[in-house]
């Protein structure tokens, strides 16, 4: 797809600047803006009853009102402030924990490495949703607990990626040269191996931001994430599912999740084209 877009553009546009990357970035910037400035942009309070309940979309309420008479658009836009920070927090924590353990496993190897990887295998053998549900349920509802549950589900992915990457890089000659120059193992890992291992983790993390938004919404949907009346997309969709014929209640948060997941995927794809010389 990158080839097509670049050919249609003039030569002034750099090759890596593809249409999906631009669209993804715009979408994500929009939601980031909403995360911070929803209060200033949206005229209705997301927690107040501002109109009659279950009103279809109109000029006053673009996405209608929900079962309690709250403005769906206002709640959707405010929802970003609940989903995005959680997603970033979860992915960053999972990347740190996973990369660290994966790097140690790949670099040290032996019994330590094997133990870490078996832990990864066990965690990955559960369906992610099921494990997140189990953990979230045992910790009790609330977005904070849902975040902890999601970190526990997500770190093994990065551990595997990082381990594979470290295993490959540590066989390169410059690593041997560094050891031959008398560098300590920790220094070899930190300055000669890890800086060359980030690319796949970065790409995967970008795409996972969208997936975590989706997982957080799923947990909220079944009542394990955000508690009412928080304008969280998952719980809003859950409300909408009760009022099946009032489609607009679920429409707003649904579109929000869809665009965020797509946006992060587009950015991840674009990043891969830029960072990974092996992909075409």
């Amino acid at each position: 797809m990158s080839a097509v877009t670049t050919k249609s553009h003039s030569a002034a546009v750099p090759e890596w600047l593809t249409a999906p990357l631009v669209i993804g970035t715009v979408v994500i910037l929009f939601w980031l803006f909403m995360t911070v400035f929803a209060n200033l942009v949206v005229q209705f309070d997301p927690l107040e009853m501002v109109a009659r309940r279950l009103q279809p979309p109109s000029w006053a309420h673009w996405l209608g009102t929900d079962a309690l008479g709250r403005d769906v658009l206002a709640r959707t836009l405010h929802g970003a402030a609940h989903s995005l920070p959680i997603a970033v927090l979860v992915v960053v924590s999972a990347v740190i924990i996973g990369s660290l353990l994966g790097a140690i496993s790949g670099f040290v190897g032996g019994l330590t490495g094997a133990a870490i990887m078996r832990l990864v295998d066990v965690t990955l053998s559960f369906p992610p949703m099921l494990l997140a549900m189990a953990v979230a349920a045992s910790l009790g509802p609330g977005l904070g607990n849902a975040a902890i549950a999601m970190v526990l589900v997500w770190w093994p992915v990065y551990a595997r990626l990082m381990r594979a990457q470290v295993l490959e890089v540590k066989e390169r000659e410059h690593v041997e040269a560094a050891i031959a120059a008398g560098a300590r193992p920790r220094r070899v890992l930190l300055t000669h191996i890890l800086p060359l291992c980030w690319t796949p983790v970065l790409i995967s993390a970008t795409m996972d931001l969208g997936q975590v938004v989706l997982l957080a919404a799923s947990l909220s949907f079944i009542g394990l994430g955000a508690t009412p009346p928080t304008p969280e997309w998952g719980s809003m969709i859950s409300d909408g599912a009760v009022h099946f014929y009032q489609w607009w209640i679920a429409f707003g948060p649904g579109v929000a999740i869809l665009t965020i997941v797509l946006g992060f995927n587009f950015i991840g794809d674009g990043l891969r084209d830029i960072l990974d010389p092996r992909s075409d």
Partner: protein
Amino acid sequence: MSAQIYSAQSGAVDKAGERAPLLSIRGLRVGFRRAGDQFEAVRGIDLDVAKGEVVGIVGESGSGKSVGMLAALGLTSKNAVVTGSVRFNGDELVGKPAREMRKIRGARIAMIFQDPLSSLNPVMTVGAQIAEAVRLHQRVTRKQAMARAVELLHLVAIPQPERRVNQYPHEFSGGMRQRAVIAMAVANDPDLLIADEPTTALDVTVQAQILSVLRSLQERLGLGLVLITHDLGVVAGHADRVAVVYSGRVVEQAGVSELFADPRHPYTRGLIASIPNLEESRERLFSIDGSPPALGRLPGGCAFHPRCIYAEARCRAEDPPLHDIGGRFSACHFATTLPPFHSAVLATASLDNGSVAP
């Protein structure tokens, strides 16, 4: 055998007072174990390197010449079993704890690898890498280390070193990269430099430059230099002494002029005869018949006998030790009785058309 070599060496010691061996390798063996299978890549290397001496180690790929030197530095993989003795300035290196080996590696013994592009970290500037090498072994500030990096780049004749220190390896040409690698290697004024095929990955025109940089540094800093190579031309031009390695053993060791004038091992003879020569026109280039034995499937007796035109029954049964034949060494039963060496005569002989009897 070690006593033999030592007595021979002492003759040289008398000649030049300070020529006590800097590095002294005795009976070095490196075995690998893989899935229950065990084989030896190095089957007993004996080698001395004196201060300020250039020793060439020649052998084909897989002969164990690199593995042997890596093992001497403790750089083999975990499944390797290293036995024998490696003494550096009288200090035993085999079995030395990793912490102490790190103080020697890069500081007292430095190593240069084959491919200068892959032996540099692609995400660090060249200057930062040289500075790192300095700071690994010297207590200096970052700034002082960078200043030293500039100085070292200047030493290896890289133009505009102040600008070059801030560039990344991909901005360097192949020859300049290898010079940067050499600069890193001499950053801590080592006593011994091991260069593992330093010019193999380079353009022929650049090879000579790199070798002259190495040689001038070696002379200026009084380094012992071990030049691992499969290029006899490099050895002939730069080494003082040569050790020829075949399937994990030193088969011949001699001063460079002696070795080329009168090789006393059939394998060395074969190697020298296979060098293309512009003066004598031959229909076909000489090559040693057969191929080197696979590790772990060595023939009985002398490892070279299946390819040797001088081989006799004794060679199949008995693996010859490294004989002292007057200040030089050869691991051939017929070391002293081999006919005079004429590469042109050898070129016409082969296993098929009948061997040249010793």
